[in-house]
Structure formats: C-alpha cells, structure tokens
C-alpha cells in the first residue's frame, strides 16, 4: 500500500517539478522579459500576434522552442533510460550503452569533418538538416549493428549486447579521435561543442520533429511496462508468464534508438539524464515500470529544463554547454545516492 502511495506521490511530484522547471525557465534568461511583458506575449497569442515587440520575438522564437526542446529531450532520455535499465536488469544501464549516442556523434563528426569532401551533393539537398539526418542515421545504424552482433541461436543475449556495445562505443571513440586529428581548427570547435550538448540551436521546425519522435516513442514504450516488469524476474520466468521476450527487446531497442537518436541529433550528447532520472524514481517509487516509465520521462524533462536554465543564465550573455552541466550536477548527486542507498542496490 505504501509503495502504491509512493508511486502516486512520485508521479505527481515529477509533474509538479516539471511545471515548476518550465515556469522558472520561461521567466529567466539572458534577455530580461518581465512578468507583465510575458503576460502580454501570451495573451496576444490568441489575437493573431500582430504585436511584434522584441520581447515577443525573443520569447516565441528563441526561449519557448528551447523550453519545448528541453522537455522533449529530457522526456526522451528519461524514458529511454528506464527501458535500457529494465532490459539489462541493471540500474547502471544508459541509452548510450547500445551505441546510439556514440553512433550519432561519429556520424555528426564525419559530416562536420569530411562532409563537404564525401558528399558534395548532400548538403545542397538537405541543407542545414544534413547534420541532424546524418546523426540520427548514425545512431540508428550503430544500434542495429550492436543488436545484430548480440544475436545468438537462443535469441538476443544481453551480456553479448553489453560487450558489443562497449566494443562499438570504443571504436566510435577512436573514429572521433581520428576525425579530430584530420579536422581543421573550426571543424574541431564545431565537433567539440556538438559533443558537449546544447539546446541553443532550437528551431521550431526541428523541435516539432523531436517532439513527434519522443511522443510516439513514449506512447509505444507504455505498452512495454508490463513485459519489462515480467523480465525483471528473469527472462525465463517472463517467458513462462507468456511474455514474448525477444519482441520486447526488439521494440525497446527500436524505441530507444528513435527517441535518443532524434534528441541527440538535435542537441548533441546530453549525458546522465537517462541514468539518473529512472534511478531516482525507482529509489522512491519502487521498480514498477508502469510508474517508473512515465515518472522518469517527467523527471528527465524537469532535470534538463533546470540544467539548461542554469546553462543559459549563469554566464550570460555567454552560455555554458549543457552536457557539462548535466555531468557536473548529475554525477555528484548520483555518487551521493550510491552512498546513501548502498545497502539496497
């Protein structure tokens, strides 16, 4: 009963945190927008938006898409982290484990450093979408590769997948190292900042695409909650309970690749959200995926929004890379909790 109560509290609490983080993010930023100006912007939305004050432009074209991207990115990463931890039955699993982030990073690196040389046609046809499309494709391809490598007669073996993931991640790291040697100074800078993650490039067109990808992934992930609960007992037991384990694995991997691929391709690598959001939820609400999945998505979104608000205000008018902040905030908190809960893990 108390577990059930805790679960509700966690869902509600995460939702409240997300709303609070969104509100704080909406009113803070390098560009000063007072509450009354913000009210004017919001109320004029219904009237066709004929009033194009600077505050109007900054809020609607820069801050709001960034907030929405933050919600989508955090929700996608939090949800995918839960899927991976459920699938690997390991609280330390992370979406990056199956190669999505490093695959996306490698593809982005190849595009930045060799793009003009390799595919003179591609940037002309895809324009500014080239990098996003390549990164998404890279993440997806590497995930498929790792999935393929982990197949054996009895189905997909998670230990194999983990090892293949480590190997392919290392290979992608080496590829990025090679690219950074070949890169010019400018390319190196774009590569480096891309690897550190940022919501700064939020444009409505890209934000809407990411939102659609994350929403569809979360919707599809909801149906995996019960199978994942069964898998928590062990794959053999899950099969005895009538769960199609292989199908669940496949779907979880595809969902993760779509959500994290879309997010990473737009924002670069935002670390530790997929690791800590589900972890926190599970510590309070227990392991039921019907609660952990939605709560991690909400909490992940709140965490990304909070970190991004700090990233864009603390050094204003300059900005900190978001990936640096999520690591600085996420890792110490994670370590503290490891110490606190060490008996229970």
């Amino acid at each position: 009963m108390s577990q059930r109560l805790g679960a509700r509290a966690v869902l509600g609490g995460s939702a409240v945190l997300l709303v609070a983080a969104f509100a704080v993010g909406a009113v803070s930023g390098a560009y000063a927008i007072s509450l009354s100006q913000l009210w004017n912007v919001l109320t004029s939305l219904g009237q066709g938006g004929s009033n194009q004050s600077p505050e109007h432009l900054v809020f609607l074209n820069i801050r709001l898409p960034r907030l929405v991207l933050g919600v989508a990115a955090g929700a996608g990463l939090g949800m995918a982290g839960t899927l991976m931890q459920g699938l690997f039955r390991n609280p330390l699993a992370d979406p990056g484990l199956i190669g999505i982030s490093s695959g996306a990073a490698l593809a982005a690196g190849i595009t930045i450093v060799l793009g003009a040389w390799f595919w003179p046609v591609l940037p002309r046809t895809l324009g500014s979408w080239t990098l996003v499309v390549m990164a998404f494709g890279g993440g997806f391809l590497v995930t498929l590769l790792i999935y393929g490598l982990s197949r054996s007669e009895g189905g997909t073996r998670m230990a194999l997948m983990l090892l293949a993931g480590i190997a392919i991640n290392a290979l992608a790291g080496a590829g990025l190292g090679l690219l950074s040697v070949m890169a010019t100074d400018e390319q190196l800078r774009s590569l480096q900042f891309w690897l550190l993650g940022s919501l700064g490039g939020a444009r409505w067109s890209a934000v809407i695409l990411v939102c659609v990808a994350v929403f569809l992934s979360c919707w599809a992930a909801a149906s995996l909650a019960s199978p994942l609960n069964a898998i928590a007992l062990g794959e053999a037991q899950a099969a005895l309970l009538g769960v199609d384990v292989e199908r669940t694995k496949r779907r979880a991997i595809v969902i993760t690749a779509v959500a994290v691929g879309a997010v990473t391709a737009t924002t670069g690598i935002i670390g530790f959200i997929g690791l800590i959001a589900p972890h926190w939820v599970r510590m309070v609400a227990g392991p039921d995926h019907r609660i952990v999945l939605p709560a991690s998505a909400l909490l992940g979104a709140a965490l990304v929004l909070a970190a991004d608000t700090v990233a864009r205000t603390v050094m204003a008018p300059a900005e900190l890379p978001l990936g640096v902040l999520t690591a600085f905030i996420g890792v110490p908190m994670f370590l503290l909790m490891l110490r606190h809960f060490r008996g229970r893990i």
Partner: protein
Amino acid sequence: MTDHHDSLLLPSARRRDVLRVLSASALGAAAWPAFAQDKRLPRLVTVSGAITEVVYILGAEGQLVGTDTTSLYPAAARGTPKVGYMRQLSAEGLLSLKPDAIIATNESGPTVVLDQIRTAGVKVEIIEADHTWGEVQRKVQAVGRAAAKEAQARELQGRLDAEWAQVQQRVGAAKGRKPKVLFVLSHSASPQVSGEKTAAHSVIGYAGGVNALGGFHGYRPMTAEAMASAAPDIILTSTQSIEAHGGIDRFWERPELALTPAYKKRALITQDALLLLGFGPRLPAAIGELHDKFQAALA
C-alpha cells in the same frame, strides 16, 4: 598601441579605393534608413578581435555593447560584456545586449544562432575570412556601415590601403632568397604547425617568406620528422605560445625543433597572436615588422 598610431599618419587614399568605398557605403546607407531618421547611434556587438579593433579606431567604442572573447585589443575591449567564444554564441545572450547590428566573420557560429538573431530583427553582418587584404577592407567597410560612421571608415580605408601598398612594395623590392618559415601554434600542450589555407600561411607569404609546410590544409600536430623534412630557416610563433611554454629557452628544448636549420641559429620570431593572425587594421604594421625580422634572420 604605437603601431596603429604610426599608421594613422600615412598619406591619404588612392582615388580608385575612395570611389569603391563611397559606392559601398552608399549601398550601406540605403540599408540603414532607420538611423538616418533618428539620431541615436546603432548599438553594436562585434565577434572577432580584428573587427573590435576597427570599432575602436573609428571611435565607435561608445556604441559597442558586447564583444567576443577573442576581442583582447585594445586593452579597453577586455572590459566590454563578453558574449562568449566566437563559435559558441548564445542567441538570447546576444539579444539581451539589445544590439542593432552584430558584425562577425564567417568563422562565427553556430549558424542556427545567427539565424535566430536575424529572426529577432537584428542586422547580422558576416564577413568572409579568406586571409587576404580584402578581408581587412571588408571589416572596415562593415563596421563603418553598421556603426553609421561611413565617412570615418572611408578615411581609414584610404590610409590603410596606402599603408598596405607601401608595405607590399617594400616586401616586393627585397632581394635574395625567400626564407622558409614554419609557423608553430601552441597555446596548449601539443604544438601545431600550419599548412595551407591558414592565416599563418597568408601572413608568411605577404611578409616575403615561404611556408615551409605545404600539401595539407589547416593545422597539424608537429612531429620531428616533418620538421626535419620541412627544414625551416625561421620558426614563427605567437608570444602566447612562448608564454605557454614557459619562455624561449623552454621552447627551444622541444625535441622536434632540434632537426631544423632554424634551431642552429636559434632563428625564432614571435608576434602577438591577434596582431599576427587577426587580419585587422594592424596587418600592414604586422607584415612590415615581420618582413624586417625575416630579413634580419637571413642576414
């Protein structure tokens, strides 16, 4: 500081250049009708040290509301609000300074952020950085246009063009072998050398030397065998690199350098990184100084 004051005393412009700048600024004025009407001077953000220098020479520093972290000269520019490194700009941060125009090179970014700033109604002037004298001219014109100081920009352009012609003539008149010069960049631990299509490559050529390294673009890590085969007569580096190494003696201790002809004569030339590679209004002075040092090192 003395460098650019000297340059201000040089003879006035050639007619052709004046005409060209006049027509360019007429176009510029048409693009800025708002400032012709109200007398408020446009607020500027500059992204690139050399562009910031132009603002100060034109006396428009009062209009400067922000600069990037590469804007280190003159010293007063260090005190302006910093919008971050030139390749990692923040849209909202830039807009919070309420600029009327942002002047940057095409090395600035991210592109998306520049688009966002344009969408918010701020003029974004992008200058192509191709490491030529034309780049310096474009910077002067762009600042003059954006700062509503076209007349001053024309005057400066004339002075600089004359100064440039004089330096180029002096370099062209130099007799004898052109020295093979190797540029070493090392603001951090691992030194890099410059191939083609770099600011250093252009600067060496303008000052009457030959880049000892060709066959690749951009910067590469420095290796001993590459040093030996390049066989430079002179090593060129920035004063910042020497500082990073902890002094000239420590710099020469690098094993890669021991295989070069330059090592035997300890032929090392240093110049401030922004002066040397910035392609700003001090370029004629920097090239003249570099040329003299090349000649002295060969003698």
